[in-house]
C-alpha cells in the first residue's frame, strides 16, 4: 500500500463513487446520508469512501458527532494537476521536435524525388530556398 501523498490522492480519485462524492461536495457541504442518497450503497460504505478521501486530504469532516458534514478541500487536486502539467509540457516540447523532424524528412523526400525535383535539380540540395514574400 502506497503511503506517500500523491499516491494517496491518485488512489482516492481512482474510484467513481469517490469522484461523484467530490463532485457533490463541490456544490456544498453534505452529511453522510445526503452523500449516500444518489448511491445504491450503505451508509458504512459511504463512510469508508469518506475516510479514504479524508486520508488523501481531499475533504475535511466537521467534528460535531451527530451531523458530521463533509466539505471539499481542492488543494490536493491542484497537486495532481501540477504533476500532469509537467507531462503535458514534456510532450508539447517533444512534439515540437517531432513536427520539425517530419518537415525535414518530407523535404528530404521531395528532394530525392527526381520528378518533383526536376526543375530545380541543378541547385545544390542544401541551399536554403528563400521565400519571396
Amino acid at each position, binding site marked *: *500500500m*502506497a503511503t*506517500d*501523498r*500523491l*499516491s*494517496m490522492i*491518485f*488512489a482516492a*480519485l*481512482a*474510484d*467513481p463513487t469517490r*469522484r*461523484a462524492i*467530490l*463532485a457533490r461536495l*463541490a456544490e456544498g457541504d453534505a452529511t453522510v446520508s445526503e452523500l449516500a442518497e444518489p448511491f445504491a450503497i450503505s451508509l458504512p460504505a459511504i463512510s469508508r469512501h469518506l475516510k479514504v478521501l479524508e486520508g488523501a486530504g481531499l475533504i475535511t469532516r466537521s467534528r460535531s458527532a451527530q451531523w458530521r458534514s463533509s466539505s*471539499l478541500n*481542492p488543494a490536493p*487536486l*491542484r497537486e*495532481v*494537476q501540477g*504533476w*500532469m502539467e*509537467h*507531462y*503535458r509540457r*514534456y*510532450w*508539447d*516540447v*517533444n*512534439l515540437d*521536435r*517531432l*513536427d*520539425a*523532424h*517530419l*518537415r525535414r*524528412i*518530407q523535404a528530404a523526400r521531395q528532394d530525392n524525388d527526381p520528378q518533383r525535383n526536376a526543375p530545380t535539380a541543378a541547385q545544390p540540395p542544401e541551399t536554403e530556398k528563400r521565400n519571396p514574400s
Partner: protein
Amino acid sequence: MSELVINRVFDAPRDLVYRAFTDPDQLAQWFGPVGFHVPRESVDLDVRTGGHERFTMVKDDDPSFTSPVNATYREVIENELIVGYEDVEGMPGFEGIVRFESRIEFHDEGDGKTRLVIIQSPHNEDILDDASAGWESSFTKLDALLAA
C-alpha cells in the same frame, strides 16, 4: 484529469508519423525534451504486441545525466495504434506510481495530415490491484471542478 490527453495535428501522412515513433533511426532524431538527446545506439525497438521499447535520453550538457526508458508494447496496430507501459516503481518523479501507460493513436485527417492523440495515465498499486477501479471512466466532473 488524472489522464493526460494530448491532441495534435501534423502536416504529414499517417505512415510517416507512425514511422517517426517506430523506426529507431528516426526516433533518435527527434525524441526527448529540450536539452536532451537520444543516442542512436541506445535505441532498441521490437515493435509488436508484447515487444519492447528501450532507449536512453541523455542530457546534452551533462552526459552523465541519463534517463532510460524501458517500456513494453501492450498493443501495436501498424500505422494506427501503439500502447505501451513502463513499470516506474521507485523511479524519481514517479513517486507513488507503479505503472505508466501511454496510448498513441494515429488518425488519418485527410489531405496528408495526421492527428496524433496521446493519452498517458499513471497507475498506482491500488489500481493495479483492482482492475475495475474505473480509472478509465470520465473525470469530467473533476475537470469542471478544477476549472472553477
